[in-house]
């Protein structure tokens, strides 16, 4: 039988010795861990020292290009990176779309592993069999946009460019890489890791092909999915608005907390300043999409009038990043939002992470914990000027902005003075969703238990988006996604109710599975028009390995457990899965009254209930309830005997 999907090679690059090595991919390993995120976990388990300093040359960057990336299958764009993040100290993944993964795959590589440190600034050029380490002295000190333009100028626009901005060069932790100017990659400090390795950029152009085991079967399924999308009620809205289609959800239904998690951004303000009509009229310039993705979530924006006319930016998941500038920084207008976004994107500062830190710093200033002595004589407020002032400091890695940009863990240590009391963070990363506004659904709880830190996407359960569905509506979704019957019994333990802690693992596995194969997720937007069986069908058609949804689910569970084990070895346990203090305080809003922490059905949750949620979650995962560490039994069930042995020998489990 013909095989396909996998390119069949792993590319190892050692920047210290400038050694480039290509090794064949072990297909048995590929079948067991599937690829992408899964193979990253496996390689990191085998090769990475869990106690390594994230910015040391010994830290490694694992890039995983899943088996369906580079094929015509819908949404086959996600590639996953894994490393030890400097902001959190966790060994965890980050995913992106963009053309980089596609071109690496079409160059003939499934995984790229980078270690060492170059003596002078370099960038890596991958073009099929040609892999070279090039001098980047002319690029060093340039921002993301200029770097990409210069690389395209030199090598051609057909290359996909993964770049770090100026902040990354200065080892700022709260940064992201950009792929082709728009796709962000590696929240938690991938640019700082690359900067520490003197690695300015990677460019790739794929001049080969990906073999497909059964082309006719793949084309048939692809057409079926695209047809379903065309008939979907949100189709035109998604095509026109991209992620801005979520505006009403944000402004009306859910909302975003502000003033460092002690208020909710008023609905009326959201409509006044950030409405979709204004966006279409004055902001939107174009739309970009990841390879084969029907939801163009990347925005090309350009301000048409006013003080900042002509300012141009490319921003992925644009709407989310508008929300942060609007609610956390309260910059005050759409134009200022885009202006600030442009600066963040150019320098490589992470809009998600750093706006949260700005928000926190303003509260510390208001409380007198930070004074003008710390800020350099500047008054900190929720406004555009403060945002830009701190962002510029962060970019130069100096002053208060420099301290904040190290991320919560280090900033708390450096500021001291009891500032941690006001820091809303888990494992040093900022949460995205407020469970007092959104109620405790998948993403909200995932922020607490995610090994990466408070990072929500892993908690994807499509239907959580809608807050008024009855409990029973979740059952068909879970059934369709191959959740076993006995698990369903535990999740829906009584009529009209579900236990979110027991449902969450299956949502997490689902996203882990997507990141493993290389499917874009974007939560509900893409998942809405897919069926569970599509994935088994696509995987089988592409690779030629016949696998059922249940088998794929088992592999995803294996990957997620291995991911957890990686972080157990790095020193994390239940003690790190902490609910932020502020979630237990009532949220006073200007237009929705007082909101308290509650479950999906609106029943208030106290500390004890939350601890119970954690226990249910670990139990459902087959992890130890007291420590949150996978048990020997679970590891053996998942054919991870070597992992069990290792954890045993290091004393993490008995």
């Amino acid at each position, binding site marked *: 039988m013909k095989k396909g999907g996998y390119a069949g090679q792993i590319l190892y690059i050692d920047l210290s010795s400038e050694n480039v090595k290509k090794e064949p991919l072990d297909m048995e390993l590929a079948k067991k861990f599937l690829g992408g995120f899964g193979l990253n976990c496996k390689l990191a388990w085998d090769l990475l020292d869990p106690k390594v300093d994230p910015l040391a040359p010994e830290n490694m960057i694992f890039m995983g290009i899943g088996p369906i990336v580079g094929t015509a299958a819908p949404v086959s764009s996600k590639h996953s990176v894994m490393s030890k993040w400097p902001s959190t100290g966790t060994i965890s993944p980050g995913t992106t779309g963009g053309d980089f993964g596609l071109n690496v795959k079409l160059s003939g590589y499934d995984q790229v592993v980078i270690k060492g440190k170059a003596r002078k600034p370099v960038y890596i050029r991958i073009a099929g069999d040609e892999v070279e380490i090039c001098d980047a002295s002319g690029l060093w000190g340039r921002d993301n946009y200029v770097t990409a333009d210069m690389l395209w100028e030199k090598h051609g626009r057909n290359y996909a460019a993964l770049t770090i901005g100026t902040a990354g060069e200065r080892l700022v932790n709260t940064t992201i890489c950009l792929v082709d100017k728009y796709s962000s990659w590696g929240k938690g400090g991938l640019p700082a890791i690359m900067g520490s390795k003197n690695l300015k950029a990677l460019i790739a152009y794929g001049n080969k092909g990906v073999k*497909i085991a059964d082309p006719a079967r793949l084309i048939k399924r692809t057409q079926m999915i695209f047809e379903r999308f065309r008939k979907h009620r949100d189709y035109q809205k998604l095509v026109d608005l991209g992620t801005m289609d979520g505006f009403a959800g944000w402004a009306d239904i859910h909302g975003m907390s502000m003033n460092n998690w002690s208020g909710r951004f008023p609905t009326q303000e959201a409509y006044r300043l950030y409405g979709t009509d204004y966006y279409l009229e004055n902001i939107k310039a174009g739309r970009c999409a990841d390879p084969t993705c029907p939801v163009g979530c990347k925005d090309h924006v350009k301000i048409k009038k006013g003080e900042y006319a002509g300012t141009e930016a490319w921003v992925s998941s644009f709407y989310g990043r508008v929300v942060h500038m609007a609610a956390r920084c309260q910059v005050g207008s759409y134009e200022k939002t885009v202006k600030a976004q442009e600066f963040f994107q150019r320098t490589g500062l992470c809009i998600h992470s750093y706006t949260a830190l700005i928000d926190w710093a303003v509260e510390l200033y208001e409380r007198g914990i930070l004074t003008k002595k710390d800020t350099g004589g500047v008054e900190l407020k929720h406004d555009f000027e403060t945002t830009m002032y701190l962002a510029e400091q962060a970019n130069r890695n100096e002053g208060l902005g420099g301290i904040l940009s190290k991320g919560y863990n280090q900033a708390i240590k450096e500021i001291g003075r009891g500032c941690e009391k006001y820091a809303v963070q888990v494992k040093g990363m900022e949460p995205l969703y407020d469970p007092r506004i959104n109620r405790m659904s998948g993403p909200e709880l995932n922020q607490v238990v995610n090994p990466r830190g408070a990072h929500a996407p892993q908690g994807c359960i499509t239907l959580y988006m809608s807050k008024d569905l009855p409990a029973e509506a979740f059952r068909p979704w879970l059934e369709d996604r191959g959740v076993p019957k006995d698990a369903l019994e535990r999740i829906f333990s009584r009529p009209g109710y579900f236990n979110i802690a027991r449902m969450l693992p299956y949502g997490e596995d689902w996203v882990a599975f997507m990141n493993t194969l290389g499917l874009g997720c974007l939560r509900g937007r893409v998942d809405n028009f897919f069926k569970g069986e599509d994935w088994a069908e696509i995987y089988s058609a592409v690779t030629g390995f016949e696998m059922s949804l249940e088998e794929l689910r088992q592999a995803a569970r294996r990957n997620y457990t291995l991911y957890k084990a990686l972080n157990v070895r790095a020193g994390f346990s239940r003690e790190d899965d902490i609910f932020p203090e502020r979630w237990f305080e009532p949220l006073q809003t200007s237009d929705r009254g007082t909101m308290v922490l509650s479950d999906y059905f609106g029943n208030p949750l106290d500390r004890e209930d939350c601890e119970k949620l954690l226990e249910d979650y670990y139990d459902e995962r087959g992890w130890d309830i007291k420590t949150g560490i996978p048990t020997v039994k679970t590891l053996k069930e998942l054919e991870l005997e070597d992992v069990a042995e290792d954890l045993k020998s290091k004393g993490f489990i008995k």
Partner: protein
Amino acid sequence: MPPALVTVPSPLFRGGKGVLVRKEKGEMEKALIINPDRCTGCHSCELVCSLTHDEECNLNLSRIGIMKTGGGGTNENIPVVCQQCRDAFCADACVVGAISRNEETGALVVNENLCVGCKTCVIACPLGGVLYHYIKACSMKCDLCNGDPQCVKACVYGALEFLALDEWGRKKRLKGAENLTHLFQVIYR
């Protein structure tokens, strides 16, 4: 001694000019329409094209190519594909008459058995519609998938359409009317 230059006589068979069977039956000719203002650069069309024709996904073997300019994004991505010219440069340039019109679909197709791989058609086409297939070692171009273009099915953004020419005309006019309406609103408000 170098061989004497030989002038190639213009081929007797002018493959580009043919009468469409559909047209004779009174059916409207259909064309592959590109709308760069809707192209997000997602590569779906390219990957499905090479998969259909060559059983692998390969940007270089795709008959259609998305050329990204600037930062990418709609209006900056141009789908480049054969426009199936009425008087086709490629067919005229072909010294062996390997490019001829499929009278059912209206597509200009390369006869891979006749093609000698001289690449003159690639040089002749001013639109970049003909490319060289480096594995099969012959010219390749869009054949409209026998009247059912797969790329159009894979393009959810509407950047590619397969339309009857009269329908396309109506659509363009409608767009023009919208633009004028918008203009009037600005002038007379």
